[in-house]
């Protein structure tokens, strides 16, 4: 009996040890970031940023902390293949260690590749057991290879810097995080299309440097023609309604949104249009809304958005679909560069109306562009129709939603409630003191 139990225990020990899957940490090459681009010789070029723990230890960064000299603590490996899987296999053949995706933080895809479709990449990432579903995804306006090679001051690895910027997207842009699972959800859900944030290389003033100057000017002119401030979504200059950075910590900026139709990118929303999308999603809390001086009266006002509630009400009027959007916004006056600091009821009313107008303009500019230019329902109007009228959706609306969405009448109602950021209606630092 004891012999039998001993044999069983021995067999369990041997098998549970995982002889076939033994993987020592010091034999792994951890991929922090993946870049996907068109190759020079083959359709897919993968750039994998491998961290070098030896150089990361002791707080070493690009300056080689820990006495390791100027060598950066990462190594960008590039491989080409007919698909992502093949390119990764080539990368493995180049490496003395096992390529490990368990620590992958971000996947950056070039605009060129995004326009041909992300299905092969998603297939690879979902079938690859090591990669987690919380890995961030983004579209880059420059080749990802260039983005993954930029020097960063606060982070040791450019991949980490990009991932951290993308994790801040819910706060900075008011949009949902850009993880793989969220992209897949939007891809699978009825009546909604996915989108991803766009990552740029910028200089210390926030100027986007990934396009030639003439292209930037051209795009900036187009943005002006559309009535929006330029610069946000890769238009070359900082937006008119935002501050200008000086001596930024690094040269990566997330601005604008890449709009998809199924898995293919169809266009880009600039920074202002992305904010229109954020309003629609009811997520622009803790954001800043700038009311121009001519609307606010006296001087420009900065409103700190505390709460946003967006409600979609789909309707079928005689079989014709219409969408009513109701938006409720609560905001505080964070800064008002007016001659007087007193926020009287009349002035609050004026600010509320002005804010509602600004918000409505931002939203409608976005909706118009999505409807007329991209034919992509990233705001999820179709999803609400699907849930409210499932049978009608299945039989009529769903199959032809692209065309329906393009001509969908959208009625927008914005209500803004403005309050003082202080306990009273007067600023403690105001001139009345």
């Amino acid at each position, binding site marked *: 009996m004891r012999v039998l139990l001993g044999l069983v225990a021995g067999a*369990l020990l041997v098998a549970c040890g*995982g*002889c076939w899957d033994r993987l020592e940490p010091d034999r792994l090459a951890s991929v922090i970031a993946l870049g996907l681009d068109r190759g020079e010789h083959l359709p897919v070029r993968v750039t994998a940023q491998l961290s070098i723990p030896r150089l990361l230890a002791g707080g070493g960064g690009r300056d080689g902390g820990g006495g390791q000299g100027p060598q950066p603590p990462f190594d960008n490996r590039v491989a080409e293949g007919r698909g992502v899987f093949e390119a990764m296999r080539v990368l493995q053949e180049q490496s003395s260690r096992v390529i490990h995706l368990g620590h992958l933080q971000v996947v950056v895809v070039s605009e060129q590749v995004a326009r041909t479709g992300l299905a092969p990449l998603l297939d690879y990432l979902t079938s690859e057991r090591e990669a987690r579903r*919380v890995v961030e995804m983004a579209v880059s306006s420059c080749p990802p290879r260039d983005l993954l090679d930029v020097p960063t001051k606060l982070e040791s690895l450019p991949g980490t810097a990009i991932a951290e910027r993308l994790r801040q997207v819910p706060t900075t842009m008011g949009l949902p995080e850009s993880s793989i699972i969220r992209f897949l959800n939007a891809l699978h859900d009825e009546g909604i299309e996915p989108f991803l944030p766009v990552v740029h290389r910028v200089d210390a003033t926030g100027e986007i440097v990934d396009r030639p100057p003439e292209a930037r000017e051209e795009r900036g002119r187009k943005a002006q023609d559309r009535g929006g401030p330029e610069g946000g979504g890769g238009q070359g200059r900082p937006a008119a309604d935002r501050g200008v950075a000086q001596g930024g910590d690094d040269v990566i900026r997330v601005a604008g949104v890449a709009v998809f139709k199924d898995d293919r990118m169809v266009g880009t929303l600039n920074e202002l249009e992305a904010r229109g999308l954020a309003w629609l999603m009811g997520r622009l809390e803790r954001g800043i809304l700038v009311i121009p001086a001519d609307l606010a009266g006296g001087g420009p006002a900065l409103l700190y958005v505390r709460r946003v509630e967006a409600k979609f009400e789909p309707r079928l009027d005689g079989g014709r679909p219409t969408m009513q959007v109701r938006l409720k916004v609560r905001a505080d006056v964070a800064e008002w560069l007016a001659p007087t600091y007193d926020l009287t009821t009349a002035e609050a009313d004026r600010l509320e109306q002005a804010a509602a107008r600004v918000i409505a303009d931002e939203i409608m500019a976005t909706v118009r562009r999505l409807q007329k230019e991209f034919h992509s329902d990233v705001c999820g109007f179709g999803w609400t129709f699907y849930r409210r009228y499932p049978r009608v959706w299945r039989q009529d609306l769903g199959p032809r939603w692209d065309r329906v969405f393009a001509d969908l009448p959208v009625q927008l109602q914005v209500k803004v409630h403005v309050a003082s950021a202080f306990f009273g209606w007067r600023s403690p630092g105001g001139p009345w003191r």
Partner: protein
Amino acid sequence: MRAARAERAGGGVPGRGQPRPQISLSEGTALGTCLAWPVAVLYLPAVVAAEGREDGWLGMLLAGLVLIPVGLLLGALAHRVPRLGLVDQATLALGKALGRVVAAVFVLGTSVLAAYAVRAGAEMVRLLMLPRTPPWVISLVIALQGAVGAWFGLEVVARAAVMAFLSVGALLLVLIPGFIPMFDARRLFPVLSYGPGPLLRSAAVSAGFWGQVVLLAMSAESFRTPAELRASALRAGAASLATGWLLFVLAQGSAGWYGVSEFAMPNVEVMRAVRFYLPLFERVDVLVVTGWTAMGFVQVAWLVWALARGVSRLAGAVDSRPFVVPVAAALWGASLVGPEDLPGLLLRWTRVLVPLATGVLVLTVAVVWLTAAVRPPAPPAPRGARRDGTGAVGQDR
């Protein structure tokens, strides 16, 4: 000596002069929960979502209704033919020949579910942890530990079940808040937009898993009273259903029905997207695997014990322990049969084979109960009494 061994192995013949193992209500509840939950929580959501679309969560809830008749059936049979396991109940109620045939059908159904459990566990370990390890090795380990558990007897397995039950309960309390940031209740709607078909199909598949508490019939003699058996079955079913359903709702609300149906193990996949615990825990799915391992091992140990017990009683043997290793070996072999690809396993086994096997088991118990109700069998000898009625042999534990 032999009697003592038989007692340890839970192989004593109740009411025939041999002491039998006894399990309490809480142990029975934990044991019943371990019967279906480990596999159901991993593989059932994908099939339910594929069959039920948005209605899957309703179908799974609807399937919970099957628990009530199954629990009542177990209690009623134990009341009619007390202090015996299913094989003895069947032979007593239906006669030796027919009773053995019916019992053999029950044992066969149990073996199908056991082989499925071993294979499902092996696939889970292979997919999540040991991708390069051959499946036969993992199946072997699972079958071996099942044999070890069964060798030590039902009471040991039952106590292990309580520990696993409590551990998994604590894990769920930790894990469930992680879903909240991703959860969107709108993904659970619209319901019944495709009519009752998807709802009923998903309910049928789910019932195949929740109905597996019927397996408790094999250890009916170990419960103190029929009421405790019934209560254990109902409580176990309710616990399995509540946790399994909650995880399914959270997964569907986080990834949508299509996302859930797309992966082999949706709960694990969704948990791989949980950010709630970053940077404390990067791999929350490891906790799920730990929980499954605890309950899955108990499940397989119980199934090996039940099969060994069933085979031994069919063979007329008193001690079931000599049958433990052959049964475990047979299970290992049976678990290697079937498609090598996991989607094939899911589609063919989870969707068809498991509900079919569970249905056969419930039907078998119903037949035995019906016969016993129509023609009540002679009651077995009192517990602890010798055949000649001269006194007790041992003490029940």
